[in-house]
């Protein structure tokens, strides 16, 4: 075995494809028969191939060749390595020395492959892809490209698989390296490299999208303004991760390990578990903060994010049960939080006990807050239905709901829904009603009390009717009942304020002695009317009715009561005063004046008569 001749052999074979094929075949034959012939006849290939591999390694290491540049060369290298491995595992004692050399060169070959594997995986182009998450157009890119099976060929393209950014070529190299390493028994090195680099890449990608590691301690103490923003980012990151990144990752493993599904799955599921728990920790941290009502909508967002099917659990074995558990635990906590927030809302309503009535009978801020809250909440109606179904066994007791009269619906048409969420809504509305009623009792002026009740009642009904989900929830019957309630208040108001006024304008009772109309009595009536009317005008102009329709309804109904009565009174009894002096003192107003003055009512302005005096 002449060294120099070996060397020239090697170089010759290296350059000559046919010779290479021949020598590989020789080796294959030898390997098949080595058991049988007891290793007596050791062919040349057994000595040459290791040298050949050594030589090729040398080329790679010195940079004369680069793995990935010449596919044929690379393939030959791998083929030779493959044979060397088989050689090294065949147990023929007479070639022990060879075995040591083969194991040695094999190790060097695997080192090289590992190095190349790492350098591809670590490629700055893979890691440092500058993708900015902040710009809106980029977001559109992410969320618009919904295609489930992006073509592999486009992997160089920026949009699809931008995350892995590995060209088809690179993937094929990785696949070949991986296969060889696995066959040769270097599976652990191979998998470790993948696991470590990909985890790091993921972490970087998530950071780039605005999600970094956080401490539970910090998150739990964050102010709501900061936390809100973080939750928004988190939602986007999680969705992006589960819709794009993890799918891309799955495809990557599938392409690199097409023939080793177990490895592909195991690597993937491990990564997924790590990433998901990393992401969920933030949610857990957010849930540690106080469960107050204003946080509802962000928490609902989080719940919705987690509700999406994450990846399709079949791909996640063996980590599927753990990931599922973690996600459902997080969801459960969010459900608890949301249910508690509704309780918090109810308690706030119950405890809103100020002793000072709202000025001018206007809509109370609490009414506004609650109705807007519910309206906004109904945008999440489906989610909230789910949440309350899930939370049903936890917090809500049907007992306190059964006590509400709202349950006693019999008719089908217009019946409110009776899902747990609907019952919650109903109970909140009832509490609000109670509260409004309680507040109305603070008004000593009964008329103002009714105005207040009308204002708030109207606001509530309008809000319900203006929101179809809310309307559905409450049902037509509820609306009708509320409206008839409003009409009742209206009547009460009229009676309270205007019945006495109308008394002044009664056509009867003005006869004095001898059944003649008493001038004195007429004068008194007029004075009475005037002072009452002026008083009412002064006071009730400052009252507030913001709802235009209600305002006009009120004015119209008052007009239709007062003006005809005034007209007929004046028409009937004016003549009796014609002869008096200062008739204007008594019949101060034309009916049209009254009309105009009535328009001042409920404007919330302090008006004086004199300005409007015609």
């Amino acid at each position, binding site marked *: 075995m002449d060294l120099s001749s070996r060397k020239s052999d090697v170089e010759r074979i290296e350059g000559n494809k046919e010779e290479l094929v021949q020598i590989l075949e020789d080796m294959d034959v030898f390997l098949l028969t080595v058991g049988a012939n007891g290793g007596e006849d050791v062919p040349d290939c057994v000595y040459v191939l290791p040298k050949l591999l050594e030589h090729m390694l040398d080329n790679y290491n010195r940079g004369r060749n680069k793995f990935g540049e010449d596919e044929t060369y690379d393939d030959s290298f791998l083929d030779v390595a493959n044979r060397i491995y088989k050689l*090294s595992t065949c147990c023929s004692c007479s070639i*022990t020395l060879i*075995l*040591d*050399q*083969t*194991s*040695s*060169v*094999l*190790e*060097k070959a*695997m*080192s090289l492959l*590992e*190095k190349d*594997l*790492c*350098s591809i995986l*670590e490629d*700055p182009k893979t890691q440092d892809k500058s993708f900015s998450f902040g710009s809106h157009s980029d977001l559109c890119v992410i969320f618009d490209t919904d295609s489930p099976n992006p073509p592999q060929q486009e992997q160089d393209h920026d949009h699809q698989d931008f995350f892995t950014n590995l060209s088809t070529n690179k993937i094929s190299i990785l696949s070949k390296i991986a296969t060889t390493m696995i066959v040769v*028994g270097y599976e*652990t*090195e191979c998998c*470790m*490299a993948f*696991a*470590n*680099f990909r*985890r*790091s*890449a993921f*972490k*970087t990608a998530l*950071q780039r999208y605005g999600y*970094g*590691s*956080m*401490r*539970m*301690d*910090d998150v*739990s103490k964050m102010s709501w303004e900061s936390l809100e923003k973080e939750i928004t980012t988190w939602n986007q990151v999680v969705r992006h991760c589960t819709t794009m990144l993890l799918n891309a990752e799955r495809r990557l493993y599938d392409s690199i390990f097409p023939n080793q599904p177990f490895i592909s799955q195991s690597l993937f599921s491990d990564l997924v578990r*790590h990433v998901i*728990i*990393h992401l969920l*920790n933030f949610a*857990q941290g957010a*849930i*540690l903060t106080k469960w107050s009502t204003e946080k509802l909508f962000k928490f609902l967002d989080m719940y919705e994010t987690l509700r999406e099917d994450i990846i399709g659990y079949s791909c996640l074995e063996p980590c599927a049960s*753990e990931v599922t558990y*973690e996600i459902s*635990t997080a969801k459960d*906590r969010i459900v*608890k939080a949301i249910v*508690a927030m509704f309780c918090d809302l109810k*308690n706030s309503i*119950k*405890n809103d*006990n100020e002793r000072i009535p709202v000025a001018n009978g206007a809509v109370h801020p609490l009414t506004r807050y609650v109705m807007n809250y519910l309206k906004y909440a109904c945008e999440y109606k489906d989610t909230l239905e789910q949440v309350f179904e899930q939370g049903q066994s936890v917090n809500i007791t049907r007992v306190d709901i059964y006590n509400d009269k709202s349950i006693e619906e019999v008719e089908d048409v217009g019946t409110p829904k009776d899902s747990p969420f609907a019952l919650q809504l109903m109970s909140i509305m009832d509490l609000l009603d109670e509260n409004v009623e309680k507040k109305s009792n603070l008004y000593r002026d009964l008329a103002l009390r009714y105005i207040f009740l009308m204002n708030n009642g109207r606001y509530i009904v309008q809000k319900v009717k203006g929101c179809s989900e809310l309307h559905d929830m409450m049902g037509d019957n509820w609306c009708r009942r509320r409206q008839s309630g409003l009409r009742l208040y209206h009547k009460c108001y009229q009676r309270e304020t205007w019945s006495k006024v109308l008394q002044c304008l009664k056509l009867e009772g003005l006869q004095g002695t001898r059944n003649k109309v008493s001038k004195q009595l007429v004068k008194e009536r007029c004075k009475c009317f005037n002072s009452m009317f002026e008083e009412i005008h002064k006071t009730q102009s400052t009252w507030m009715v913001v709802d235009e329709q209600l305002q006009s309804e009120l004015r119209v109904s008052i007009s239709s009561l007062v003006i005809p009565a005034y007209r007929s009174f004046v028409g009937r009894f004016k003549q009796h005063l014609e002869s008096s002096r200062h008739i204007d003192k008594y019949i101060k107003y034309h009916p049209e004046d009254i009309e105009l003055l009535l328009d001042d009512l409920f404007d919330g302005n302090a008006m004086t008569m004199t300005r409007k005096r015609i």
Partner: protein
Amino acid sequence: MPATTESNQGSFLGRISIRRNQVMSMDGSHDQELEDLELFQKHVGDRFSELPADDLLSIAWLRRLLDEFLCCEAEFKAVVLMGRDPSHLAKPPLDRLLPDLLDRVVKSLDVCNAVTLGLDALKNLQRLAEIAVVALHHSPLGDGQVRRAKKALAALLAAMLHEDATAKATERSRSFGRRQGTATAKASPRSFSCTMARNWSASKQIHAMLSNLAAPRGNESSGLAQPVYVMGSVLVFVMWALVAAVPCQERNGLGTHFPLPRQVGWAQPMVSLQEKIAEEWKKKEKKGTVGLLDEIQRMEKLGHSLVEFADSFQFPAEADRLEEVKKQVQELSDICTRMQDGLEPLQLQIREVFHRIVRSRNEFLVVLDQAGKLSTPPL
């Protein structure tokens, strides 16, 4: 105490027992409560004394520790929450002590997360060791196998050092790739960077958890302040032990001083464990090692020894040397098996502790909230 006659004593005791009966009839549940509180402390002591003193800080030991912790926690909740008027929890000193405890609880969540990451790192070490085991099992043992084993072991030992080094180090080149210095911590094929938040420090966290942990004094020592203190101590001790055992981000400066009362029954087992662990820690801290986890310590020793062997290896090796190595490789393989069997369940257990802590904290908050409402009457 002056000698009393039998009859005096009898009457004295008789008076006491009458009074006791009176108290009992007025508030019979109170005694039961006190008994429960005492039992809780006794149980804590019992549980910790049952932890085996040998095999300290092995994976199996840690799992036992966590089990005991969960039992303590469950009993604590039962004793403090069940059947109790919420307003009791809003009264001083509990109005300060309970929120303190809950704050400690939140900090321990971060420790749980760090330890979980540390266990991931250990899994990597296990894999490296397995490479060495597989390589060195090869018979006949050739240059290539030995080199492979050596590389894996060298990476293992380097990782052990690095895991303990501060997370600021970005240059962890155990890989072969060319590095452009960038700000983000780089991965290498054989390890990955810890991913707790920047500047997070396990030792500082433990230190923070220890602040305000003081035994209740005077008349506070009866009543609920005591079990709250006990639970706080148990929590911090368990977290401290985990940090000592498992490599977590920034453990330098982990305090070894623990303010546990030495004379008190429930604390004694913990104190003795703590002292043993602290001793080990001080020894190893000088050398700068990876963590007191028993399996890792042994792995480190074996790693050094096998690397030595690899350095001096020449094919073919002498038979007796090979025999020796074979034994060590077997030992290493056993450790790997223990890690293979134990690390995953340990990780799951830590996660369970995490979730349990969150759940319990929430239960406490609900009760405290109720208590708060009860103490402020509605208008």
